[in-house]
């Protein structure tokens, strides 16, 4: 086969569009060996190498990441026990795990050796990170065998908070062949389900939960002893610092999905009606939401994948910091001169009483106002915009801050068709991504928290079938209009089998326009436009 034919086949193989004939040809060539097989392997090898070149992660990134893995492993006592036992066996020439375990578990403190071993592993990570020669004495790492020595003297062991078990990677499957020296590894765990978000840690309570209103006496001062913070899943950049005194500023009225609240003492048990204190951080992990109520009756819904912080700084003007994601707020009328302020990294939304939404992604803050008027102040230069009902404004470096909208009025002439909304599709399962049906204006997509990176967007029309739908992404219309249901942004190879698309991080503006006839011909219907934001923590 010619290089072009081979290239086309391998592209199709990679994209999952390989036909039966080409698949048989490729498999046959590989099995036959020889030059053809070498060419195929070389091409595939190049694809992996190109991915490696473009990934941008250098050796230091790898070592740093591996150190984090080691730290995570350090929280798993079973692993530490096994490693400690091996280390001991290695020193003395034979395994002695039972004796070691028995001796450790009879210690007065609960497994103090875990702390010592974790400290040793963290020290090892430091060495990895800094690239020190291990022969030099490491400041943070104990000398060889130190963990065992400390374990043998539990009274000297440093107390160390033990993390909850983290999800372990799937172990490798046994090969049962060839490599006599390969250690036996357990069989593969079943593949994770294709669809659905991370299961919530706590069952979501039924909504709505009747809760009495928070009154002024509910604002109480609570003394807490500072303690080292316990890591939480993807902690936000502004993790609450330990404080001797915390003040209740709101309550968590109700919630759905997985919610994490951290305070000075680390992660707190989450329950409906729990008080939220100054310095607390609240995270919504994956699909879900948390309803917060302030004493004055102001309500804030923290939406999926969003993080908010209750400022700990005394006298801070902001009542709530939106670190990431989107919140929806219904702010009651505030006293003159004492506005309710939502703060983000880029801006402050100063509110006297209204319904609004604040969306924060790295480098950009968006304010949507549904009722009343809100001033958006940009931190960078103090520029501001007054945003009225139906309008929005964006605070970002290098962009003018101004009120935009409201959306143009519907033309008077009756339309034959309309795009009524969008749905985010999981291209692996061809089903809507939970929480993104519809994909609303201002939505924030965290790629690493979605069930897949293989995505697509479906335009929903009225009527359900129209002549064609023309998409435009970020102002660029696509060459071909979608002419059959489902109307997919990135197409569907077979009817309903969506092609995969991974959106790039940042802001995207998506427009779909229905047409009376195929190929975007005939009368144009009512278009629909949204702006959405993509965050990719892996990049």
């Amino acid at each position, binding site marked *: 086969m010619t*290089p*072009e034919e081979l*290239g*086309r086949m391998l592209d199709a193989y990679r994209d*999952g*569009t*390989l*036909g039966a004939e080409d698949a048989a040809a*490729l*498999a046959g060539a*590989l*099995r036959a060996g020889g030059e053809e*097989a070498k060419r195929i*392997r070389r091409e*595939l*090898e*190049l694809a*992996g*190498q*190109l*991915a*490696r*070149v*473009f*990934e941008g992660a250098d*050796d230091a990134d*790898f*070592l740093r*990441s*591996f150190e984090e*893995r080691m730290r995570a492993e350090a929280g798993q006592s079973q692993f530490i026990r096994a*490693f*400690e036992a*091996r*280390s001991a066996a290695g*020193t003395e020439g034979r395994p002695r795990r039972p004796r070691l375990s028995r001796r450790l578990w009879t210690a007065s403190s609960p497994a103090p050796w875990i702390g010592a071993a974790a400290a040793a*592993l963290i*020290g*090892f*990570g430091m060495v*990895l990170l800094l690239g020190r020669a*291990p022969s030099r004495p490491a400041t943070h*790492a104990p000398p*060889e065998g130190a*963990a*065992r020595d400390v374990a043998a003297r539990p009274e000297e062991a440093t107390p160390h908070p033990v993390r909850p078990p983290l999800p372990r990677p*799937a*172990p*490798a*499957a046994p*090969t049962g062949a060839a*490599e006599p*020296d*390969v*250690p036996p*590894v357990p069989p*593969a765990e079943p593949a994770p389900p294709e669809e659905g978000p991370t299961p919530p840690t706590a069952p979501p309570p039924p909504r709505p939960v009747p809760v009495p209103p928070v009154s002024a006496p509910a604002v109480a001062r609570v003394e807490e002893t500072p303690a080292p913070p316990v890591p939480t899943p993807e902690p936000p950049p502004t993790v609450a610092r330990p404080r001797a005194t915390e003040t209740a500023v709101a309550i968590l009225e109700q919630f759905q999905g997985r919610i994490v609240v951290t305070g000075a003492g680390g992660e707190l048990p989450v329950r409906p009606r729990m008080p939220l204190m100054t310095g607390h951080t609240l995270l919504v992990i994956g699909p879900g939401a948390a309803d917060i109520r302030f004493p004055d009756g102001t309500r804030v819904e923290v939406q999926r994948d969003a993080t908010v912080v209750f400022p700990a700084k005394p006298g801070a003007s902001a009542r709530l910091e939106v670190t990431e994601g989107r919140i929806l707020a219904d702010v009651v009328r505030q006293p003159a001169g004492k506005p309710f302020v939502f703060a983000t990294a880029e801006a402050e939304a100063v509110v006297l009483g209204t319904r609004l939404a604040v969306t924060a992604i790295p480098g950009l803050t968006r304010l949507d106002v549904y009722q009343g008027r809100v001033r958006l102040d940009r931190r960078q230069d103090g520029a501001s915009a007054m945003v009225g009902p139906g309008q929005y404004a964006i605070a970002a470096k290098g962009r003018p801050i101004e009120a935009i909208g409201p959306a143009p009025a519907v033309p008077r002439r009756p339309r034959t068709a309309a795009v009524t909304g969008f749905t985010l599709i999981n291209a692996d399962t061809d089903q809507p991504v939970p929480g993104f049906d519809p994909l609303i204006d201002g939505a924030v997509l965290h790629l690493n928290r979605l069930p897949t990176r293989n995505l697509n967007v479906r335009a929903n029309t009225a009527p359900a079938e129209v002549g064609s739908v023309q998409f435009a992404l970020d102002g660029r219309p*696509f060459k071909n209009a979608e002419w059959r249901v489902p109307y997919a942004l*990135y197409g569907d190879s077979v009817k309903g089998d969506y*092609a995969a698309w991974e959106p790039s991080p940042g802001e995207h503006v998506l427009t779909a326009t229905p047409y009376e006839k195929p190929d975007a011909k005939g009368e144009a219907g009512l278009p629909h436009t949204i702006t959405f934001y993509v965050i990719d923590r892996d990049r």
Partner: protein
Amino acid sequence: MDEREWIQRAQAGDRNAFGEIVRLHQARLRAFAARYVDRSEDVFDLVQDAFLDALRNLLVFDARQEFGPWLRAICRNRIRNYWRERRVRRTAHQALVDAALEEGMGAMEDDLDDAVGKIRALERCVGELQPAHRELLQLRYARGIPVADLARRLDRSPPAMSMILCRIRGALMKCMERSLEAGLP
């Protein structure tokens, strides 16, 4: 201190020594895994998993043997496991090719010492490409955008887009060969 001594120290429980082993082997092992797995984030995870497997099983390793082949064998197990898990997401036709690839997995290991050098050469050659071609490769290989989508984005037909990619890859291969022959970094 040579590798054998690091291994012996690691087997005796010296974690710093294991850190040194990771530092010595990670680049080559990542280059090795990149031959079989085209998603760079998966390569990253796989290789870390392989090092953790090695750490867990370090005592069964005979320190008189070569450590690299042992580590690669562990990594190969991880890759096979990854392929098995991936099967549920593959089409029947992809699976046919996957099976043939898996059968001949060892056939690609005859020039392993060059794996890191190839990556370095490729980095250099990619840097010499036209910006538009470099961006195209990034969309295709770093972000995994299908050829049909790239074609749509750039107003080309899918076969034409495949042809363009094929020519860029061909140019890169020639450039890599030249670089390796000339001993360029």
